[in-house]
């Protein structure tokens, strides 16, 4: 590998150090600024780390980063408290306690205002309701750490050039070949853009896109603070996050730093960032806009009046600091889909920097990071999500949610209505409540189905949080489906063909299961990562010789497409049909009757078995599979004939009582009753096929990615097994990621150190039970509980493994 890393902030430095550690010898690092502080976001960062996050991936990256900072002697544990001014916030803090337990962050606890006052004496605790205290919160020296990593790389032979600006990136045959700079050209087969707010600009030089936007976050520094004059360290007191006001206060030597994410979103253009020479401070320390901080000053004064109300304490420093924001608030990591050999390591906070450096280095050198980075994969965005309107709209909307109370199913408001299916008009007429995924509008449930709630006697949810972004109509649609049939808009699937004389080789390598099947067969298969964890799960249809059609969930489709493309030998190509094919799902006991009335093709069980597809006489491609676990088909039509298909099914469905149903059923209730796993929930890189109890197929002789690891997994006892649990008495409804604990509240930890937590949660209306899925270590753990909002609810393990709780012998699907 001939590697050039562009960028000398926390990410660029960490990555360069780790690449050298992992054996890359031909390694160059560049930055247009000087070291140690080239003037990017790292240089003025607040440098504190709160490890607890609701996301497993972000928490893993943060914990790994803290380990590295600590090993380099650049971490100081000062503790931190997230304080609540409202009861609503206290509920959120209880959620954070649960996440701390799920991800293994010890010693966190909820604290009272009095305890907060003891920990941080200069706080006015009378305005607080309580707090979430994490003793392992730390402050780091990101510039010093970066220097250590960079020097380690240099000791191992890397060349580092400061004051060297990139002027161009050459690409030949969609592969990166050279970086042009003010110091001359550097040949390279691998280039990493770790340029923070400048990343989109650098990416554009190579014809790639890195969808982030520079944005302001304000901070001021006040001092000297009389109480801090006797401090022994730079941060003697725990850092305070004033969550309800989107602000933080931290000691910084004799001063207090006050930061805010509460102001209006102030976005900048990467091309419009001043140069180092033009800047009064640095390019990412922009002039302070006083008016945007006025309310924040008052809020901060309320919380720490002893410090800020002191007339002798002056405001010494105030900036509009620049940082990177992405549409979904997650980093941008991995090889860009547009240019081979061009990698992104951008939109990363100081708290994840070292972890990202190690993970991306592993990904580059070993083909896989140890920490699962599926949520941060830069390839995840569809073209519609890379537009300036989308990036800016979502970044602006997400900014004020930095310390927000965000419901797990909360929907975005900005940039909606971008991708709609041909049935959109019908769905609107039926009162569809649209949720968005991958820029598609998808009905989550239909208001016109409200009468079904009484018809089926469906109960609502008592607690406001549980009932938020949910409707009892979902459960009613589910019951109507199981009794008659339902039709679903599934156009958001990502659909692409692998085509060419070597198409079989490509799909054999990617798919774990045997793909040398007859034309007309449909295969549901895991896609594994090199070390045997899940990279995806999807359906592949053998269309004809040399053509395989991949159908995968919208959310992960683009990353899947890139993975297939990366494994296409010469002469094999990917054809993206996402925008030319629309899909209706029709499932339920009456599905065959409905389908039979719109086509002359024989759709009996004998003529049309499960797991096969056929083209019907009306041009519709019907695939007999079912993610809701009932009789039926996915029906694919050309986009322009979609409305005709919908209307035909609708009319045919009237006498049978067919209802329209939404993703509430398709994505949750239907599949949970059948114990069907979902990628990103149960299935990720941390767990293997055996642990997920999905190894019911024979291992093929042909090679595939992850084969050795997979075979090894089959030969040993799993450290944990995915189970279906139910809540004994339905009152509250956990929503996902809550810890599973024993009678004494202790977490379950398997032999690999993984804790048991809820991977998916939802109602099983046909069972009348609330279902949770979780990986449990083997053995008898006694009575188990799920910890939700600070309380424990008893649960029962219904199934160890993948046997469906509903219709365990799959009679409905195979009927």
């Amino acid at each position, binding site marked *: 590998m001939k590697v050039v890393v562009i960028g000398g902030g926390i990410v660029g430095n960490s990555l360069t150090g780790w690449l050298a550690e992992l054996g890359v010898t031909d390694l160059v690092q560049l930055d247009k600024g000087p070291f140690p502080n080239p003037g990017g976001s790292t240089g003025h960062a607040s440098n504190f780390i709160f490890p607890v996050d609701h996301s497993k991936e972000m928490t893993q990256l943060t914990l790994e980063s803290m380990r590295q900072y600590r090993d380099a002697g650049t971490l100081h544990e000062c503790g931190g408290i997230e304080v609540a001014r409202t009861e609503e916030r206290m509920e959120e803090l209880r959620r954070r306690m649960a996440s701390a337990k799920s991800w293994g962050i010890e010693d966190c606890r909820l604290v009272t205002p009095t305890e907060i006052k003891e920990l941080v004496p200069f706080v006015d605790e009378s305005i607080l309701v309580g707090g979430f205290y994490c003793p392992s919160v730390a402050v780091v020296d990101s510039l010093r750490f970066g220097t250590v990593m960079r020097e380690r790389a240099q000791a191992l032979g890397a060349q580092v050039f400061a004051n060297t600006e990139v002027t161009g990136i050459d690409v030949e045959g969609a592969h990166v070949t050279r970086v042009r700079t003010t110091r001359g050209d550097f040949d390279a087969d691998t280039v990493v853009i770790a340029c923070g707010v400048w990343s989109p600009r650098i990416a554009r030089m190579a014809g790639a896109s890195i969808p982030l936007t520079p944005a302001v976050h304000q901070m001021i520094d*006040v001092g000297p603070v009389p109480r801090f004059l006797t401090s022994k360290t730079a941060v003697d007191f725990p850092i305070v996050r004033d969550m309800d006001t989107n602000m933080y206060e931290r000691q910084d030597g004799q001063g207090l730093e006050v930061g805010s994410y509460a102001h209006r979103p102030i976005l900048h253009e990467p091309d419009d960032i001043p*140069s180092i020479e033009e800047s009064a*401070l640095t390019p990412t320390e*922009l002039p302070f806009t006083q008016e945007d901080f006025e309310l924040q*000053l008052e809020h901060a004064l309320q919380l720490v009046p002893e410090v800020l109300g002191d007339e002798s304490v*002056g*405001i010494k420093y105030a900036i509009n600091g620049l940082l990177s924001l992405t549409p979904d608030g997650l980093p941008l990591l991995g090889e860009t889909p547009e240019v081979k050999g061009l990698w992104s390591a951008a939109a990363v906070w100081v708290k994840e920097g070292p972890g990202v450096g190690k993970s991306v280095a592993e990904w580059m050198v070993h083909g896989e990071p140890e920490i699962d980075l599926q949520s941060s994969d830069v390839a995840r965005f569809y073209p519609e999500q890379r537009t300036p309107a989308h990036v800016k709209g979502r970044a602006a909307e997400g900014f004020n949610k930095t310390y927000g109370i965000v419901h797990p199913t909360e929907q975005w408001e900005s940039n909606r209505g971008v991708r709609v299916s041909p049935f959109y008009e019908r769905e609107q007429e039926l009162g569809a409540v649209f949720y968005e995924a991958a820029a598609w509008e998808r009905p989550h449930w239909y208001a016109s189905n409200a009468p079904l709630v009484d018809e089926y006697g469906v109960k609502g949810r008592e607690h406001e949080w549980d009932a938020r972004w949910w409707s009892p109509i979902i459960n009613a649609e589910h019951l109507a489906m199981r009794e008659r049939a339902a039709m679903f808009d599934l156009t958001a699937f990502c659909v692409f063909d692998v085509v060419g004389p070597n198409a079989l080789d490509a799909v054999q390598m990617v798919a774990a299961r045997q793909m040398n099947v007859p034309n007309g067969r449909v295969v549901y298969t895991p896609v594994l990562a090199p070390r045997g964890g899940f990279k995806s799960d999807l359906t592949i249809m053998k269309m004809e010789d040399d053509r395989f059609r991949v159908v995968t969930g919208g959310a992960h489709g683009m990353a899947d497409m890139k993975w297939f493309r990366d494994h296409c030998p010469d002469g094999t190509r990917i054809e993206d049909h996402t925008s030319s094919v629309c899909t209706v799902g029709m499932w339920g006991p009456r599905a065959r009757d409905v389908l039979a009335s719109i086509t002359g093709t024989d759709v009996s069980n004998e003529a049309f078995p499960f797991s096969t597809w056929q083209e019907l006489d009306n041009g519709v491609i019907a695939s007999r599979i079912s993610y809701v676990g009932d009789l039926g088909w996915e029906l694919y039509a050309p986009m322009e004939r979609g409305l005709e298909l919908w209307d035909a099914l609708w009319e045919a469905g009237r006498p049978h009582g067919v209802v329209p149903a939404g993703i509430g059923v398709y994505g949750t209730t239907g599949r949970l009753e059948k114990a069907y796993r979902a990628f990103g929930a149960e299935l990720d890189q941390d767990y293997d096929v055996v642990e997920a109890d999905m190894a019911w197929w024979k291992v093929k002789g042909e090679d595939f990615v992850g084969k050795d690891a997979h075979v090894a997994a089959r030969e040993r006892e799993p450290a944990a097994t995915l189970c279906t649990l139910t809540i004994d008495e339905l009152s509250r409804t956990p929503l996902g990621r809550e810890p599973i604990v024993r009678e004494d509240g202790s977490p379950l930890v398997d032999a690999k150190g993984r804790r048991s937590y809820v991977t998916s949660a939802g109602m099983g209306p046909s069972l009348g039970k609330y279902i949770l899925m979780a990986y449990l270590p083997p053995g008898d753990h006694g009575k188990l509980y799920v910890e939700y909002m600070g309380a424990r609810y008893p649960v029962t393990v219904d199934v160890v493994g993948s046997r469906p709780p509903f219709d365990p012998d799959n009679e409905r699907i195979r009927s």
Partner: protein
Amino acid sequence: MRTLVCVKRVPITGGKMVLTADGQALETKHLGFTISPHEECAVEEAVRIGGEVVVLTLGPAEAEEQVRDCMAIGADRGILLETTEEWDAQSTAAAIVDAIRREEPFDLILFGNESADAAGFQVGIRVAHALGLPVVTGLKKIEVQGARVRCERDVGGARDVYEAPLPAVLTVLEGLNLPRYPSVPGRLRAKSKPLAVVEPARPEQKLEKLRLVVPEGQGKQAEILEDASQVVAVLQALGVA
């Protein structure tokens, strides 16, 4: 004791100056604004002296930001002579004189010795002359002693000492004192202190600006030395090693 301090809104620049496309002004879209260091000291001095402190500026509407900054460290009241254009020294002085004449008399009128951008060195002197008041310039120390003011100017290691009767005009230099930073309560109070806004008529200018020019060689004043051997070479060339 009533003191007037006159200030001017100026940009905070980095090492490199960038002009607008037409060469008529500095490109300020990435720049913050302040008053010049001399004026910061003048405001600080007025606050220390005590009594009523009024801050006056001739500038755009945005110059309110600078007046509020002065209020945040203790000025009581502000006067904004609002204009979107640049005024030459004579016009500036005339507008300030008009404003002063509309007020109750001041005991002391302070100016920075020269502004941080145009650096005309004139306005304070012109105002004093028009008002018939004594003026002492380039000051590093001020002491109000009843009806008189004693002030000092640096002259190469020694000090010239002046005494003037009040009312007087004084122009000061950075180093007069160490200005304070605003406190948070000061900032919050500044929001509601009174600010009078007037739009003076701009007289015909005696000075016409053709264009701005950034001098050659301005920019990099330093050369980065990559390693120890280069440092040694430089020291040897300087004859110190």
